[in-house]
């Protein structure tokens, strides 16, 4: 403002003042203009957050998964209804070689927080995808988990499985591995990012709103994440867990062709371009490393030492004549 008054004092002609005011308003107004382009009310991304696991009376398990914005406490505007959220999941039976089944599931809302309930009565690996749209911003949120139900029914909802369902691009695909049944820190997770636009070069890793690191994504969309060990998880116990979110954002230019008629009736095609934004997240539910802190050599040394000491003690202490 001081600068503004100085300028007014120096150039007190109305033309000059008008120029200065226009310049200042341009600088001040730019962020608001930018905000208006990013569509107010649209969160930068959505992510899946794990809720409670409930054992049903029939032995099946129901896992509640919440759909949240970057901030854990925040709720989605209108409970996510303006995002047009869709959820479906893919199940793969772990105990037998069987076909994968695809189910669509409804997104419910509780106190402004949208959620989905996934049920399984058998041991299965489940890949959940939630998609949504807000203006020109498209969201994908995914996660993979295992449920070990014992009712024998694949799903308690008696939903008929869909045929093969092609996931709309872009999405983050976790390349399956047997170790994913119990995801741990210190393991290597390989991902393939199926691009929607020009392709992003980086993936950001978040834990509780805290940015942890940035991963490089190769031109083919592949990237690797190896979560480091976490002292808090190590201390907390075997079933303690934390959520880590991988985020890939990219922009894609989309062309729309519009036929325009001249006043003489002749037509020509005018191309206009729009800019779509994609925000894809993948939530990893990580437990502490089961084998990462184990050491064989000290174990063998302790075993041999104890055996030697015990044997010497027995030989030393035992009576010469038993009776």
């Amino acid at each position, binding site marked *: 403002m001081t600068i503004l008054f100085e300028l007014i004092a120096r150039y007190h002609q109305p033309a000059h003042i008008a120029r200065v005011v226009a310049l200042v308003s341009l600088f001040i107004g730019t962020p608001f203009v930018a905000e208006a382009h990013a569509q107010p009310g649209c969160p930068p991304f959505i992510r899946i957050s794990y809720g409670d696991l409930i054992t*049903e009376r029939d032995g099946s398990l129901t896992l509640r998964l919440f759909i949240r914005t970057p901030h854990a406490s925040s709720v989605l505007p209108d409970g996510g209804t303006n995002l047009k959220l869709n959820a479906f999941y893919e199940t793969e039976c772990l105990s037998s070689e069987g076909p994968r089944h695809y189910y669509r599931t409804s997104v419910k809302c509780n106190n402004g927080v949208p959620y989905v309930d996934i049920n399984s009565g058998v041991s299965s690996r489940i890949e959940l995808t939630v998609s949504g749209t807000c203006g020109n911003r498209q969201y994908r949120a995914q996660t993979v988990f295992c449920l070990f139900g014992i009712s024998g029914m694949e799903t308690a909802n008696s939903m008929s499985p869909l045929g093969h369902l092609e996931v709309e691009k872009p999405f983050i695909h976790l390349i399956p591995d047997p170790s994913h049944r119990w995801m741990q820190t210190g393991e290597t997770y390989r991902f393939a990012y199926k691009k929607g636009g020009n392709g992003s070069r980086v993936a950001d890793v978040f834990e509780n709103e805290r940015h942890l690191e940035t991963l490089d994504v190769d031109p083919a969309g592949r990237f690797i994440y190896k979560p480091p060990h976490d002292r808090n998880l190590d201390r907390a116990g075997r079933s303690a867990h934390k959520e880590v979110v991988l985020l890939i954002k990219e922009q894609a230019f989309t062309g729309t062709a519009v036929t325009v008629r001249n006043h003489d009736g002749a037509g020509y095609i005018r191309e206009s371009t729009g800019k779509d934004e994609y925000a894809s997240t993948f939530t990893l539910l990580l437990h502490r490393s089961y084998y990462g802190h184990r050491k064989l050599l000290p174990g063998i040394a302790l075993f041999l030492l*104890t055996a030697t000491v015990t044997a010497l003690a027995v030989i030393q202490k035992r009576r010469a004549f038993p009776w």
Partner: protein
Amino acid sequence: MVTVSNLRLITQHLMFVVLTYGGRAGIQLGHALPCLSCPVVTGYGGHCYLVTLQSYVWGLQMAAADMLTAKGLQALYQLAIFVLLAALLGKLWCGWICPFGTFQDWVSHLRKKLGIREGQFSWRTRDLFKPVKYILLAYLLVIPLLVAHTGLHDDFRLPFCKICPAKPIMPLFVGKTRCLELDFTNTITMVFSILSVGIAAGMLVGMFFKERFFCTVCPMAPLIHFVKRISPIRFEKTVDGCLGCGNCHRMCPVDIRDVHEQQEKKDVLTEDCMLCMTCAESCPQDRVLSLKYFKWRLFSSSGSYVARHTNKGDAGSAGND
């Protein structure tokens, strides 16, 4: 000629192969076996009920709310299977089937081959050992309940498995050394892994110098003994015919003196007995010691059996040296 000792030896080795490697051939005898068959062994053919009993899947660590669900029914089902198996074969599980028992017999056999004398405990030491199995049983029953209901740290789960000597030793038969590792994840895991490896080493030495050393403290023995009343297996002594020679006591690999000293009761099956039948094989009196299944007599002591096998030098092979 097939003797009881030979028959037992064949059964033991067959069951060792089935329970240790059977899973690789598709054999699965379930999760409620009354013997120490460790599930950590990759490709096991059925595992110990103690694991099931402690676990949160079908055991005591299950939350109270889950008891009324299908999970609770599964837990009862596993318990029923255990009671049925323990009742059907009783202590034959210990002497004839348990793979860890077979391993202990191998270690004892090695000692005999090396010509090292077996260690002997005083009666006072033996009496000191007696309550250990009950203490271990209480430990494995109480700790999972505390984990489930009082918020005891999760790393106390499967408390007996954490110190069971079978866990570091038995996986070595499938080339798995992972259970000999020390776990430095946190203080609890480190203490338990040190205890596990230390106890396994101490027990290995113990079972080298003393036949079936671990069986004297095994918490499975009292569990099997609880179902003795409904078991058709009977080990009986005809008190009138006993001359009191003491062969049964001298030959017993686990130093049971009750068979020798019992002068009133017919039933001489004690909780430490593993029904190896060494005592019956060495008893020179006809039908003084008998193993019965319901009313059928499976094996009885006889003078002719002792005479036949003593001449061949068989009868004393399983006992002392």
